[in-house]
């Protein structure tokens, strides 16, 4: 069983997110809205002008970036087209493809089977990472990208209990409204202090949406949930064992 918490770690490591054409030249007209891919409400979309190839890339200057997972929200929009998830050790010259296909047919997960997740990666020396979108077999199309996360995931060492309650409405985090449809209370009864510290130190874990992933679907029946965590409560139980209660809301999903 793998139950993971995935935040957009790369956004914390990188200096800039950039939208470029197929030759890695920045698309100035679309660049101002590139922050859509870094987080925020699920309904936000970065839409290109035209149908040319596009690359959406997180770039750092010198310090290598690392990640072990990636999540693309609304990956269903790119099914049947050319998709490549790529990282560069030396941007733009030296790259490695994690996934590449001209007729992308991924296994999508989530309540509406809209999202894509790739885990089990081991990238530690990236100067840049992103996705390359082009027409592919499906032909030219206007590319719309929602959130794209590259994550250093946290894998919980034990099974939780999960309580899901219907909760249709908005929640407000800071000044940002998020439309949600479920509230989840997830309890892990025995985590060490070090594990709790690691979770609490994840970048923007309480201020930005993140993903919860249960690869087997045993506890998260939709396997992948795009959530906003509103509370992490830690109670010391015994010795170095702590009960962690996570309260979060599942972001509403749309057609």
């Amino acid at each position: 069983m793998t139950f993971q918490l995935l935040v957009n770690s790369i956004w914390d490591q990188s200096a800039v997110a950039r939208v470029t054409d197929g030759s890695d030249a920045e698309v100035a007209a679309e660049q101002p809205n590139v922050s859509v891919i870094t987080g925020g409400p699920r309904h936000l979309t970065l839409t290109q002008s035209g149908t040319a190839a596009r690359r959406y890339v997180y770039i750092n200057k010198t310090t290598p970036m690392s990640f072990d997972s990636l999540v693309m929200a609304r990956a269903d929009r790119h099914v049947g087209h050319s998709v490549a998830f790529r990282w560069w050790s030396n941007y733009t010259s030296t790259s490695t493809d994690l996934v590449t296909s001209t007729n992308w047919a991924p296994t999508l997960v989530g309540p509406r089977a809209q999202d894509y997740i790739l885990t089990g990666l081991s990238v530690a020396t990236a100067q840049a990472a992103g996705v390359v979108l082009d027409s592919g077999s499906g032909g030219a199309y206007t590319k719309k990208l929602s959130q794209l996360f590259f994550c250093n995931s946290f894998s919980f060492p034990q099974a939780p209990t999960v309580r899901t309650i219907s909760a249709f409405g908005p929640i407000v985090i800071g000044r940002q409204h998020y439309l949600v449809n479920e509230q989840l209370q997830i309890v892990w009864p025995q985590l060490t202090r070090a594990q709790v510290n690691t979770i609490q130190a994840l970048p923007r874990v309480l201020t930005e949406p993140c993903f919860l992933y249960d690869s087997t679907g045993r506890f998260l029946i939709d396997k992948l949930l795009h959530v906003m965590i509103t509370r992490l409560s830690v109670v010391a139980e015994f010795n170095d064992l702590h009960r962690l209660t996570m309260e979060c809301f599942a972001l509403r999903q749309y057609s």
Partner: protein
Amino acid sequence: MSLWILPNTIGDVATTLTESGMTIASGYDRTHIINGARSSHCRWQPASGSQQIRYLLPTNYTPTHMVIARADWLCTQNTMRVKGFQRSSGGVWSGISGADYNPLAAANLMGPRSQDLAFAITPSEFTGFGLEADTISGTEALQISKLFVSVGFQFNVEPSFRPAWEPIPKSTTYDMRSPLYGTFPLEVEAVLEMRFQGVTTAKVLAFKALPRILNWPFFLFDDSGVIWSWKLEHVLLQSYEINTSDADYHDITLKFLRLKQYE
């Protein structure tokens, strides 16, 4: 296992809703029979013979039940024969075997005020479904509140305790509630909580995928009368809670609001 959840599966996907053998009365809208409060209804002008309400479908469906809200309006002085109807791929309409009340009588009706009718169907044609009401004598004006044709759903576990309806907290103005998803308010008169223990993941997913379960009223049909002697409830989903403590084992608690019943 006797409790069915009956959404209006066919009404949700039908491409056409029409009638045959009658003309809609002035000022009425036939779409009111798809969804909405029990107070909304449709009436057709008096006619004799076979009067049919028809849902046409874009693709084949295999429903399991039909429900008529305010079927008491079909218990007319001259009586009416009420049947389920189905449409073949060639466009021919015929009666569904077994779904035949000849004539419909007050003793057939269900619900807290004995106003509705629900019955199982086993269709042999799948491109359209509907209701036929035949006049026994004279002319009759067909009038109903809702016509549901449902692909029924069961959790395959009994509710964990005998559920009881409780009155809703009274407001100072009116007792109206909006569905979970959407804003259209409906008059309600009671609340019920039901808990199902040991539901599989597949069943939880299937429940959440039921058509319009979050924003349209639907029916709870206790076909054996084990839970309610009146067998049928017209409800709105107020909330759901799912507790998961083990693999493929979920406790799901549902709160239903009974739609207000009128004379």
